[in-house]
């Protein structure tokens, strides 16, 4: 019951947060000097044409009227029409966001299955070779620019070895699976389209690793430091003393207590991965939100910029909400507080 009330409260809190974000984004993107009408029409446009288009787009209204109109649309599920693609922003978001979401989820998966075990190993072998190795590895992951790492991986796995594809979500000439979620791996799995599934997974490996490099580093370091504290507790010593197998002590007893700060960080890491996807998407020509946002900014496509920002904000809030809710299940003490 407490958990439900907690979730309800957090969902209500989303509303002022989103309104705040929308005002900020709207204000910032409208202070960028530049004329969207001119960008659409190009240098050959006539002054009359420009004026007509400005009027048509509502650019001549005062800013607060433009914002009011925009917000009125949002409550009817209308995010406006992209001035760049001439399509409703909602449709564009539905088309581009699954690619980003899929890639981010994959990166988070890598982060979990690599980052946590690495952190645990590192903590339990403190100052020994395995620890040194994982610490350097984590540091490199955090410090290396995603952009550069992506290119290195491409050079090695794509150009030299030729074992992994270099760009896009599918092989050239392959048609995407039937649209269900927009995430190719899941859609291919649901429709039993094995060749597409294989291609989609292969295409995700390099961008996934690139995107995960930073978050793996973050999680490894956090797991390590959190585990180091836990490993010094009395009950761990007791567990070892009574002869429990090492893995059971580490993953069963210690990790369960040491994972709380890691979970908090996971929410942040997810946000980081969403933001980082802009660069990674560029290197791997991944047609996701990042690419869409860059195009939108270059064309001063305000409705699209707003749409992307709000969507990312909502995703970020929801993921953090899920993470916070997880506490209730992992830490029974919270249920009684």
């Amino acid at each position, binding site marked *: 019951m407490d958990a439900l009330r907690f979730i309800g409260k957090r969902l209500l809190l989303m509303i002022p947060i989103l309104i705040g974000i929308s005002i900020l984004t709207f204000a910032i993107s409208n202070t960028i000097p530049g004329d969207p009408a001119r*960008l659409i029409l190009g240098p050959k446009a006539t002054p009359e044409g420009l004026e007509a288009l400005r009027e048509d787009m509502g650019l001549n209204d005062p800013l607060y009227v433009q914002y009011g109109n925009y917000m009125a649309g949002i409550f009817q599920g209308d995010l406006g029409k992209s001035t760049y693609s001439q399509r409703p922003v909602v449709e564009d978001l539905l088309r581009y966001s699954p690619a980003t979401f899929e890639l981010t989820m994959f990166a988070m998966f890598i982060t979990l299955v690599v980052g946590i075990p690495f952190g645990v190993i590192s903590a339990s072998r403190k100052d020994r070779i395995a620890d040194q190795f994982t610490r350097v590895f984590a540091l490199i992951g955090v410090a290396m620019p995603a952009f550069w790492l992506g290119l290195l991986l491409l050079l090695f796995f794509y150009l030299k070895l030729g074992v992994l594809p270099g760009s896009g979500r599918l092989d*050239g000439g392959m048609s995407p699976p039937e649209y269900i979620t927009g995430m190719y791996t899941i859609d291919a799995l649901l429709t039993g389209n094995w060749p597409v599934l294989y291609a989609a997974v292969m295409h995700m490996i390099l961008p996934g690793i690139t995107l995960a490099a930073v978050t793996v580093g973050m999680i490894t370091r956090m797991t390590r430091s959190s585990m180091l504290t836990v490993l010094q507790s009395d009950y761990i010593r007791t567990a070892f003393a009574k002869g429990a197998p090492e*893995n059971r002590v580490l993953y069963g007893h210690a990790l369960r207590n040491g994972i709380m700060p890691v979970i908090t960080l996971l929410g942040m890491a997810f946000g980081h991965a969403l933001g980082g996807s802009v660069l990674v998407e560029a290197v791997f*020509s991944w047609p996701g939100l990042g690419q869409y946002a860059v195009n939108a900014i270059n064309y001063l496509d305000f409705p699209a910029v707003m749409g992307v920002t709000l969507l990312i904000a909502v995703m970020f809030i929801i993921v953090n909400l899920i993470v916070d809710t997880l506490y209730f299940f992992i830490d029974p003490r919270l249920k009684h507080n």
Partner: protein
Amino acid sequence: MEFKTRWPKFFLFLIIAVLVLAGCQNYNEETEGEGAASPEGTPAESNENFDAEVFNFATNQDIPGLDPHGSAANTTFRVIYMTYDRLVTYDGTSTEPQPQLAESWEVSDDGKEYTFKLVENAKFHDGSPVTAEAVQYSFTRAINVGKSAAGIFSKVIDENSFEVIDDYTIKITLKEPFAPFVSTLGTAFGNIINPALEENHGDDLGESFLSEEVMGSGPYMLDSWDRGETLVLKANPDYWGEAPTMETVNIRFITEASTARLMLEKGEIDMIDNTVISPEVLGQMEGTEGVEILEADGYQIDYMPMNTEKGALADVRVRQAIAHSINYDALLESVYLGKAERIVGAVPKGMFGFNSDAKLYDYDLDKAKELLKEAGHESGLELEIAISEDNEVRSNTALLLQSDLEKVGVTLNIKTYAWPTFLDLVTTGKHDFGLVSWTPDYPDPDYNLWYFAHSSSKGPGFNLAFYENSEIDALLEEGRTSTDEALRENNYMEIQNLMAEEVPYIFVAQPKLQAPLRSWVKGYELNPMNSWYVPFHKITKEE
């Protein structure tokens, strides 16, 4: 519990297993291998990515939409040139309009009436014939949509300019004589659209419909379009003209130039958009096995407008001093790696009206200092150059200018802006200097000179020097409405002389066009004016 403790190891094992399995064979080896056998049964090619029927083109600029009358993006032009036909076209390296849908045309003596005879076998993709009515419909829509295409046509024609004489003959009467009219019909704005579009007009003349669909008669049809990823064109089996050579054309968006380069080296891409890769990287690519850099003369000019309405640059002596203080040879050599020529004026070398005798300013620091002293700037001067980001040539040029001007006591601050901000800055006259590239849409000096030098074009009309000279205005107006070629040529020569004297612009370079492609690509000719016109229907691949 058993599983719980083992899952990290299990997943690690799984990942390693997948990688090892993948490593056992080159990615895509089998599938591509089958595709590689050409229909003639020649043995499998040495590069597993070779496919004689499929052309893979890479660009880093997304396509906003496909409406020929609504888009100003070069990436859109590339697609609509292949999916629509025009009354006239520019073929190969020629900049003379050649017949396409119009097999012949006549111009009245006063230069106002154009009568076009259309070919009778041309068909739209839906099978309906391309008639005079379609021509009228297309130009009327272009004007009514009021976007990019209208910018060119609404000056000279309106809804009442058309007279359909019979199904295949149409007379267009101009509001006033406009010498380059036929040339404008070969641009991407002159594409002829199927009047059946009317059924999908909606409330925006079919703009949102046509931004996703093709309703043309061209050699290619739109097969599929995964926004931001690939646009696929398939050959039109019933094309009325010569059958297209490439069966499939994939236009792929590879945002990152280095990735595109890797894919070209691997043979997964056949050609890269010629604007993607900087001259420096092109230099590094030379000599890569299987890759060629195709070079051709182009009409692109890179130039530096000097704001003649602002501060010190309003003084012609200061502008002349700047022109004297640039080390042009060093610039062409180090920024363009020698793949560019210095030019005199706004008309590119090779085009009608080019004035080879207009005054060139030599690199003369003493002269420059003297001029600055005369203008009262002995103690130095501080100016700003605005450039847009993401262009190596421009940022290198700006750096070089900075060090050149330093020598004559001018401090040049380089300000880099995002494209929208840059465009706003230079069209509203807040800049001192700017750096811009420009390619004319049709091969007539009227095009560049009107934009650059006519007083009505100041600012938003792209006269970025805010230059005004009534003599030039008069010469331009006379040249545009005259049909006397000799007089026109004379006028344009004269304008270039006047501009050379008053230096509102410094024309830094006319670069060569360079397209990186696989050496198996044959029959591609770069059009000097229209480098985004890639004739996929004439290109072949032979290994």
